[in-house]
């Protein structure tokens, strides 16, 4: 589904990804862990098509097609979703309006008609209630004045609404209290399906207790330096990254 081959990328003069390779198959959940500054968010931005980064080598295929020349919105309608580590505020634009615009953009790209307002409301109600998002929040401008945890829940709500095929979650657990963590995890688990895959970037095992990954990777200094099963995350939790970072340097 998602194939990243020998990806090198830089921002300005600084190389951040240094030959990253990763394959994600449909139905799988991959966790990516790694020290601060390793390049995890950078990877997610490059996958989503943020302009600031220059890909100097390698390729990224989504369902067999290269996506590196696609605009971010084209990647989105092709099924790639990124839940941001730091969701962006858009003053004056009601969350509801934003959701509708996003959903209609997807439908339009697929040649479908726009939903009627009642159909849309029903859909939003379905996904927002599961994530404890009130209608009052939906009326507020996108992410403006949302608490850290509310922002993360809103990201998952958008994901549930857009039904992407590859979901990248960048530290969706940070800033969540224990109850919210469960709500978000349930939201994600409900979306798990044989034809959808997840890449979950996190620092903590506690998220992986709820969203159990099939495969765990350690990303350090712009490369995947170790790949294993769920037990790898437990080991990291106990022993830290020292061993793997040293590996990478060696």
């Amino acid at each position: 589904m998602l194939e990243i081959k020998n990806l090198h990328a830089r921002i300005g003069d600084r190389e951040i990804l240094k030959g990253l390779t990763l394959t994600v198959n449909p139905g799988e959940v991959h966790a990516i862990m790694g020290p601060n500054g390793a390049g995890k968010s950078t990877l997610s931005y490059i996958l989503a098509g943020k302009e600031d980064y220059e890909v100097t080598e390698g390729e990224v295929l989504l369902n067999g097609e290269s996506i590196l020349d696609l605009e971010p919105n084209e990647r989105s309608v092709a099924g790639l979703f990124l839940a941001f580590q730091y969701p962006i505020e858009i003053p004056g634009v009601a969350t509801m309006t934003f959701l509708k615009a996003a959903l209609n953009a997807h439908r339009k790209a697929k040649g479908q008609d726009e939903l009627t307002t009642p159909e849309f409301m029903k859909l939003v109600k379905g996904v927002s209630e599961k994530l404890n998002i009130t209608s009052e929040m939906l009326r507020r401008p996108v992410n403006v004045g949302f608490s850290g945890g509310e922002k993360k829940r809103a990201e998952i709500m958008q994901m549930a609404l857009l039904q992407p095929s590859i979901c990248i979650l960048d530290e969706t657990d940070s800033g969540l209290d224990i109850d919210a963590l469960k709500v978000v995890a349930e939201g994600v688990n409900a979306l798990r399906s044989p034809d959808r895959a997840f890449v979950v970037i996190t620092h903590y095992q506690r998220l992986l207790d709820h969203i159990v990954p099939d495969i765990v990777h350690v990303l350090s200094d712009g490369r995947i330096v170790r790949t294993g099963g769920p037990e790898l995350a437990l080991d990291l939790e106990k022993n830290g990254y020292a061993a793997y970072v040293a590996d990478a340097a060696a």
Partner: protein
Amino acid sequence: MAAVKETVDQVLSIDVDKYKYGFVSDIESDLAPKGLNEDIVRFISAKKDEPEWLTEWRLEALRRWQTMEEPTWARVDYPPIDFQDLHYYAAPKKTTGPKSLDEVDPALLDTYKKLGIPLKEQEILAGVEKGERPVAVDAVFDSVSVVTTFKAELAKHGVIFCPISEAVRTHPELVRKYLGSVVPITDNFYATLNSAVFSDGSFVYVPKGVRCPMELSTYFRINEKKTGQFERTLIIADEGAYVSYLEGCTAPSRDENQLHAAVVELIALDDAEIKYSTVQNWYPGDSEGKGGVFNFVTKRGDCRGKNAKISWTQVETGSAITWKYPSCILRGDNSRGEFYSIAISNGRQQVDSGTKMIHLGKNTSSKIISKGISAGRSSNTYRGLVSVGRKASGARNFTNCDSLLIGNKCGAHTVPYIESKNASAIVEHEATTSKISDDQLFYCLQRGLPQEEAIALIVNGFVKDVLQQLPMEFMVETQKLIGISLEGSVG
């Protein structure tokens, strides 16, 4: 408004060079010879069958104008206008004045139909059944009003809504009393020019205690080339009256510039309220700055009575040059003035717009919310004056001016003037300038929105406070108009 809706449906893919309303109607015109002198003024006055006092009034303005110089203080730059190379009167030949619809030239009706303005009352009422609110329309084509709808219905409530040329004949006492009482003929170069040669425009009188039962609107269209349009609008809300009025404008795309110098006067007596909304979408010129309407407009409202209220809401998306400062004179005690503005400039457009709030009465208050959006290579200036007179104790003003830049070849400027002669006045001013952030754009794109749609969405959020001031139907359509005006603003 239907005009805007139609634009959206049909023109979503075009750039600033392809202005929707740019078609020319092939209608034979009755033209005054080019140039401006006493004979031309008499010609216009005679065409309109005006009384002697009005002819004299015009001539006085002309003499005054001949001694005046064009103002140069605004931040706009344009080639000199040859005022002798223009026609000061143009009227569709078959229409000598407003008539019943059956008599109106079908080619004219067709023009308005293309613009999406229904003039047939049956069609409008059909819209009402679908949940649209009725709007009475005065359609002004070049120098004359071609038709006014719902006059009879309005007359039942004592509301007078007709072309000003007709009001001069049918209600001379009202016209004579109020014309020039807010914007005197000596006011400024363009207003004085307008006073000499004004063509047509709307007249509204809402009698004491009457709440006007429907929205009133005037739809202006410049068609003839090398003409100036000099419309004159006069709206009077008598004691305790209320009226909401909409103004819409378009013009054909022509390579040469067209001159538009309107005057609008509003008078609100004790406890009266006037809400005046404009969506100005004159031809802006092409992306290289060729052609486009020069829009030099004087709009002023006088809160002449106590507790009177006047509010201006404007959405300015068109014109090559916009020079416009809808203002309020807060004369009556406790009177209120409001100015809500969205000014969008793209391509090579130049906007210098803002407001003046003149506090004269006690406990008067004013509010100014201005949102300027500049894209392309345009320039967008907010220029505002808040003045508090010696007797205006307890006066309050709140001003908020926000500018949003799209791209890095455009400019935004804020020029606020504050003059206070009364120590008890409270004047607050806030201003911000921002750019659409790459992060905001990326976020929207990540959710599937194409770039232009994302910009339109972010801009609509930016102007939300002002959009909410527009009548409901107008608000939705304006949101779309904003998207269209910004097409081609990046990349």
